[in-house]
């Protein structure tokens, strides 16, 4: 008879906001906070992607650390004393929301994102003014929408540079590597090589980048066109779960339907099979349903 290996997981004791918390070794501060009901805002974090800790909205204060630390990727250590709602934490979170709000079009961002802006009383408008002579006028990432294919559009005026689409296109899901971060600093952007149009790039139209985009910078063309026409109305939409009919993998699809037409297709991020990711057929191959 074979020996059965025992997986011992050590417990880590730490303090979060004055409360004693015990978590298994390897737990991140974000998970530890969640385990005691502390709601931490996140933006670049997603359960199905490797943490990149770039947005800094999840920062918390750790005793004896000179700077704040990102909860999404910092692993809990024994004896850590963590504050999630100190003056410094609130200030940094508020400013991060303000900085994003001051430079990015958040009109189609996830509702949780907009709720967090309110929760931290962010006032993005306070960075607005240039003076009368144009000294110090505010820079934004505003630019024309990129529409170069029939399946999805890229509106980088809405991009917060959370790196999620790059991760989904790369080793976290698709391994296609059609896009990467290009340029530097405020001019950094998500781009194909030399900004070549998607049809000339490595893109395979899996749409997994749309699936992880938190701001609507990446959007189904169907949704984009309806928004342009003023007919997009989420209150009139239903979501129906089904299984993708194309191959034997069995991906769960969520069909978003408005006025008896499929307007977009998603898959739940916590689904065992897809982890939220699909392929071109499941994501976009539903036009035949509507051939009436």
């Amino acid at each position, binding site marked *: 008879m074979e020996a059965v290996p025992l997986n011992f997981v050590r417990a880590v004791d730490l303090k979060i906001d004055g409360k004693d918390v015990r978590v298994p070794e390897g737990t991140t501060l974000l998970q530890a906070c969640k385990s005691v009901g502390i709601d931490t805002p996140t933006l670049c974090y997603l359960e199905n992607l490797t943490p990149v800790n770039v947005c800094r909205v999840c920062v918390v204060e750790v005793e004896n650390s000179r700077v704040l630390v990102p909860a999404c990727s910092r692993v809990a250590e024994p004896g850590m004393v963590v504050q999630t709602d100190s003056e410094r934490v609130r200030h940094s979170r508020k*400013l991060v929301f303000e900085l994003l709000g001051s430079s990015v079009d958040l009109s189609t961002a996830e509702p949780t994102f907009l709720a967090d802006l309110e929760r931290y009383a962010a006032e993005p408008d306070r960075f607005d003014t240039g003076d009368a002579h144009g000294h110090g006028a505010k820079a934004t990432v505003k630019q024309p929408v990129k529409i170069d294919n029939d399946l999805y559009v890229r509106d980088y005026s809405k991009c917060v540079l959370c790196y999620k689409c790059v991760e989904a296109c790369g080793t976290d899901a698709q391994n296609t590597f059609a896009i990467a971060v290009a340029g530097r600093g405020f001019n950094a952007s998500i781009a194909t090589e030399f900004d070549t149009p998607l049809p000339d790039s490595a893109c395979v139209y899996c749409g997994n980048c749309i699936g992880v985009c938190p701001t609507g910078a990446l959007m189904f063309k169907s949704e984009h066109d309806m928004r342009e026409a003023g007919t997009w109305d989420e209150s009139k939409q239903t979501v129906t779960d089904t299984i993708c009919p194309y191959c034997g993998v069995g991906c769960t699809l969520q069909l978003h339907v408005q006025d008896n037409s499929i307007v977009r297709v998603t898959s739940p991020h916590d689904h065992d099979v897809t982890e939220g990711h699909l392929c071109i057929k499941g994501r976009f191959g539903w036009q035949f349903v509507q051939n009436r």
Partner: protein
Amino acid sequence: MPAPPEGNPDVDLHLIPGAVASIGEQDAIDAAIGSAPAARHLLLPALHAAQARVGWISPGALNHICTRLLVPPAEGFGVASFYAMFATKRRAPRTVHVCDDIACRIKGAEGLCRSLEQKFGAPGQDANGLNGAATWVRSPCLGLCEQAPAALVQRAGESRGDEAMAHVTLEDVVGAVETGDVRAAQQTIAPQTAEPRDSGLRLLRRVGKADPSSLDDYRAHGGYVALRKALALGPEGVLREVNDSKLLGRGGAAFPTGRKWEGVARNPARPHYLVCNADESEPGTFKDRVIMEEDPFALVEAMTIAGYATGCEQGYLYIRGEYPKATARLQHAITQTRARGWLGDNIMGEGVRFDIELRRGAGAYICGEETSLFNSLEGLRGEPRNKPPFPVNVGLFGKPTVVNNVETFANVLDVLAYGGPAFAASGTPGSAGTKLFCVSGCVTRPGLYEAPFGITLRDVIALAGGVADGRALKAVLLGGAAGVFVTPEELDMPLTFEGTRAANATLGSGVIMLFDDRVDLGDILIRIAAFFRDESCGQCVPCRIGTIRQEEALHRLVAARTKGAAAGARDVGLINDLALVMRDASICGLGQTAASAVQSALQKFPVLSPEAR
């Protein structure tokens, strides 16, 4: 040598349709890559080769590089577009980079740039009347502050390569743009090495004395004594001496060198890597350049000792791309030393294996941050990593890595030659040894100075002959753009790690830049803010957007100061709010210090009063 990881063979490469590299580009790229297996870490050298051949990274060249190295073109483009010395749109093969950063600014760089714009047109555009042969661009600090104003000629497709220019006039720069000829070559300015020579020099002892191209001359001036001692002591003995020496890192963070080395030496993971951080780019800093240009063998020897003590067989020397002279001299030194058998598989016949590969940066201040430097070496974008894990555990290629600054390595030779305890006895109890100071700006004898720790700021300024032209001193920038401004009342501050810390200042990289009563600090602050905006890698929100909002607010404040301080109260509030979030929530030291100098100036000087101009 332990082979670094290879490129990703599973990538299904999709190249840019129809883009083919010219034969010249292909040859240059192939020569840079050699017959090595596809390896991502060769991306930066390959991009350098393409840029040096035609003056920009063409789609065809990128296709060729990506095919050879199995790198997805989108990622290759992401890396190429990260660096200021690479152009990803067609640019004239000859590009003159004109420094308009703070030290050059107070020596008239802004006027120089305006004249160039009048003559040649906007920066980056083909210069008027030269048929697309040349252009000029503005540049951040080129590390020639003691010879300001400075410029760098980047010459693609020529055997002459790149060359720095110093003390330039408008005619010099115009000539460089028109013909590529350099009439104002850079020099070495270390006044203590001129006769009568300062007998107390340690780090600069060979500068101006030993021929930097001759290994024999280096030996005749005390070279390779330290390595022999190290080999006699054994790795443990070297670690003991370095620990005993209390040597602290000279790159700015002042971390104990011995602890760093021990952390790597004791780490069971293999291989270990050694990295010399020679990406000196902090505005006002030129100390490492002087060591590398004038005493290159010393750096090679010190790295060898470090590699021996910490179990590294491969060292990387990452030098900033704007230092062509230092690069050439180091490459020569490495080749000479290897030929002598003092680098390679059997150093000094003792069975010790260690070698050094020289890698050029390509114009990115952020790559001086150690984890960005690793990413840059690995062929990724030079974005900093989150810490922990620290480099002693997870560094270059994910392995335990020793990374030290050039000046730190230079000190190691003395630690070995005189013994750790003797080294610890010099300087002050908290700051052992001597320090290099980069003195520039409105000073009589700008240059590189060496003094024991504990010397006051006043005495260093006196060494350099005091404020130039008999003017009154307005302010000193201590530690670089990431440092702080100090007032004339603070000159008795002892220059030690602990002394500057007590005064809420920092030694940083040893920058001492003087501003006299004619300098408009508002203008200097805007330039510092622009520097950080330009050099931010863009990864984290506080730095990416915070640095540009800081610059905008400063523009408004400075424009509004004729209306009195009250007009700017709102913007001062914004700047203070930004300073906090950048310091607290940025990923790396760049963002964390991007507000430091601006904050100190606003607190200590009436920068915003109408009379401040």
